[in-house]
């Protein structure tokens, strides 16, 4: 009962606070329309892309990806590998959390302890498992020691948000998520659940005070409404604009459409564990030839995207442009099917999600029709995401799934190991040579050597066709004329380098 009373009091207080707090003046505020509210502002509890937009404004990361996606110094002013399993970082000495605590090597060590605390139950830390320990050398120098060579570590450090030790230890990880204290370029001014998150510029930020005083992330769940908000000028940034609405947006005279390559590779997974025709490499190649990716891009996405030749997008480390996409060749597809013993084709089940990826249902239907044209009769089911992800991971799920996969680190190991090696997430394909190559690449520290290995991997995956490679999309953003801002290839919306004008 006490619980109940406390909850009701807390709600009452929140209601009063919510109505009392002032929003920033519109002319000093950049409004970003987002589809879903933040779930937590504790960076180590963040899960959605919205969460990541917000926490990166509030907390600094060790390293930062520049607009060209190269990894650059940030709070860490320099880093170097000491040996294959040790990386040394040097920190700036002028970084303070907004409660006055200084950001030091101890904060980094505490952060690792924080996200590993079983009570916090942090969701997205699998990639950090290779970090064995943090050795604090002095206040501004520390070393990460990894359990095996970990060449992707610097890239991962762009997702390493540092939390203040004193405050977090005092209030706990959950409270940090609702009353965040960080060292980032913005501080939290107001959070009205399912309505808006207002951030205010941090005047004391080590990198200088951001030009845009207030940033409002406004929750607008419906895509049509977000587009209307761009047209009316209510929102300054709207992401994931469908290509066919560009003329509409431009007619409003308030908006320009900016674009950047999207972070996701789209593909069909093929289960080769079950007794289906997909076990035959010729069938898998035939499926790749049978799908007209260029037509999908041209007609469904109005040309905004590129076909892929592997699971790697061009922005990823080691992408080899000399490996070419299959291309559309239905004749070749029919020949391969006939060679594999299916001159009349075969029937197979496929699942695709709804409301998950841009035009997911449309693309799935086009794919089904195109496969049908070479004799592969696809029984397509459209499934809600929560059920879908469960079936994707289940042993006895359908043989073909439609997926998009993004990698925050841009390191191909994060997609190759889970999807193409045994004993990991998906585990529906097995090839010892490929697996050995992937394992070798993930532990090779020398960048050139590693790049060469991934080149081999891409050639091999082109040949083995363990997946049907589809496309990478160009993401479109409606940006108001009053805002000077550029979208990024990692899909993140950061406002500290933006500016507003009339």
């Amino acid at each position: 009962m006490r619980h109940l009373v406390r909850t009701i009091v807390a709600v009452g207080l929140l209601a009063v606070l919510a109505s009392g707090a002032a929003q920033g003046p519109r002319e000093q505020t950049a409004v970003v329309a987002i589809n879903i509210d933040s779930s937590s502002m504790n960076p180590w509890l963040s899960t959605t892309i919205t969460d990541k937009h917000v926490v990166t404004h509030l907390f600094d990361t060790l390293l930062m990806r520049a607009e060209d996606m190269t990894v650059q110094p940030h709070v860490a002013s320099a880093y170097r590998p000491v040996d294959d399993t040790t990386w040394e970082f040097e920190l700036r000495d002028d970084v303070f959390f907004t409660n006055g605590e200084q950001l030091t090597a101890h904060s980094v060590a505490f952060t690792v302890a924080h996200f590993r605390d079983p009570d916090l139950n942090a969701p997205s830390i699998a990639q950090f498992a290779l970090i064995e320990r943090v050795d604090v050398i002095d206040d501004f120098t520390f070393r990460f020691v990894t359990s095996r060579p970990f060449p992707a570590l610097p890239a991962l450090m762009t997702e390493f948000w540092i939390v203040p030790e004193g405050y977090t230890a005092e209030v706990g990880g959950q409270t940090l998520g609702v009353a965040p204290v960080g060292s980032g370029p913005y501080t939290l001014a107001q959070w009205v659940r399912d309505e808006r998150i207002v951030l205010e510029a941090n005047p004391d930020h080590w990198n200088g005070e951001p030009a845009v005083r207030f940033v409002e992330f406004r929750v607008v769940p419906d895509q049509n409404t977000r587009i209307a908000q761009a047209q009316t000028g209510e929102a300054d940034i709207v992401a994931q604009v469908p290509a066919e609405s560009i003329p509409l947006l431009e007619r409003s005279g308030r908006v320009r459409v900016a674009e950047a390559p999207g972070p996701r590779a789209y593909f069909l997974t093929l289960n080769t564990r079950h007794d289906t025709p997909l076990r035959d490499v010729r069938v898998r190649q035939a499926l790749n030839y049978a799908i007209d990716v260029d037509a999908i891009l041209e007609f469904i996405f109005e040309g905004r995207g590129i076909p892929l030749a592997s699971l790697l997008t061009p922005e990823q480390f080691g992408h080899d442009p000399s490996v070419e996409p299959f291309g559309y060749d239905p004749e070749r597809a029919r020949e391969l099917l006939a060679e594999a013993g299916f001159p009349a084709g075969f029937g197979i089940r496929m699942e695709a999600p709804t409301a998950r990826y841009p035009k997911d249902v449309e693309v799935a239907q086009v794919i089904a029709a195109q496969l049908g044209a070479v004799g592969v009769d696809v029984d397509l089911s459209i499934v809600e995401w929560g059920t879908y992800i469960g079936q994707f991971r289940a042993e006895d799920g359908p043989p073909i799934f439609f997926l998009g996969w993004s990698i925050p680190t841009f390191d191909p190991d994060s997609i190759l190991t889970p999807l193409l090696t045994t004993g990991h997430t998906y585990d529906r394909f097995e090839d010892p040579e490929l697996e050995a190559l992937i394992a070798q690449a993930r532990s090779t520290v020398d960048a050139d050597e590693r790049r060469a290995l991934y080149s081999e991997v891409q050639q091999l995956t082109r040949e083995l066709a363990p997946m049907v490679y589809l496309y990478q999309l160009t993401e479109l953003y409606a940006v108001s004329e009053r805002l000077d801002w550029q979208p990024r290839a990692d899909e993140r919306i950061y406002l500290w380098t933006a500016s507003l004008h009339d």
Partner: protein
Amino acid sequence: MLTFLLGRLAQAVPTLIGTSVVVFLLVHMTGDPALLMLPPDAPRSQVEAFRASLGFDRPLIVQYGDFMRGIARGDLGESFRFREPALGLVLQRLPATVQLAGLAVLLASLIGIPLGVLSATARGSWIDAFARGAFFLGQGIPPFWLGLMLMVVFSVQLGVLPSSGRGTIAQLVMPVTTLTVFLTASLARLARGGMIQALQQDYVRTARAKGLGSRSVLFKHALRNTLIPVVTMIGLQIGHLLGGAVVTETIFAWPGVGRLVVDAVHARDFPIVQAAMLVIVTLFIAVNLVVDLVYGLLDPRILYE
């Protein structure tokens, strides 16, 4: 009367327990929150550990026991996603929902009932024909379509109303209109149908034959009976809007309970779904109690023994 009220309060307890069992079973049938919370490349070991941390590795009956013990303490669990008490998150959304549902039902009653009665008394006239056409359209137009059309006209073209959000009166206009159009149509139709039927009843004819003024006949006798299905409908609508105005809430970015529940079901955030269902069923019991009391007021022959 007092026994009636006490009896109904006593019935609330098994209803809430029944709800808790059904919602608990249903949410657990819908899938696995761990897979949705974790990134897609999470290793199996992490998925298992995450499940265990949510308590899903234990038998369902044990989990239900925990859930019920929590309820007894007024603790409906912590949201998987927000890591906050689920009940608080639901109650926070309640004012927005009540505001929208209340206004829409109020307006719909004020417009729909008189319109339906008028249409019945002027049966066959052009007023009736016009009103009936309007009712039918009102309930045939898909709400999302109406909502988006209002937005195109009043926000995008004319620029007189904000497209969405909550906080100002102007932001209420379009969501309330969208809901009211549909509700008005159904209330008006029930009012008209009931009124026509009532006017044909023997006792009304008798009263008329006895020379009582037509106006007083209408209002004393006919309207009372007419209002019973209308009141039932209002009760159903309030209940429906408390948890279900999802389309309108989504289009107009209205931060209500309906959206919270749908998001929570999609994310398999069980504690929020469970808390919301218990809150909604409680409100429903209250609404239906009021409806039953109103029956008694309208028709004293409906005794509550």
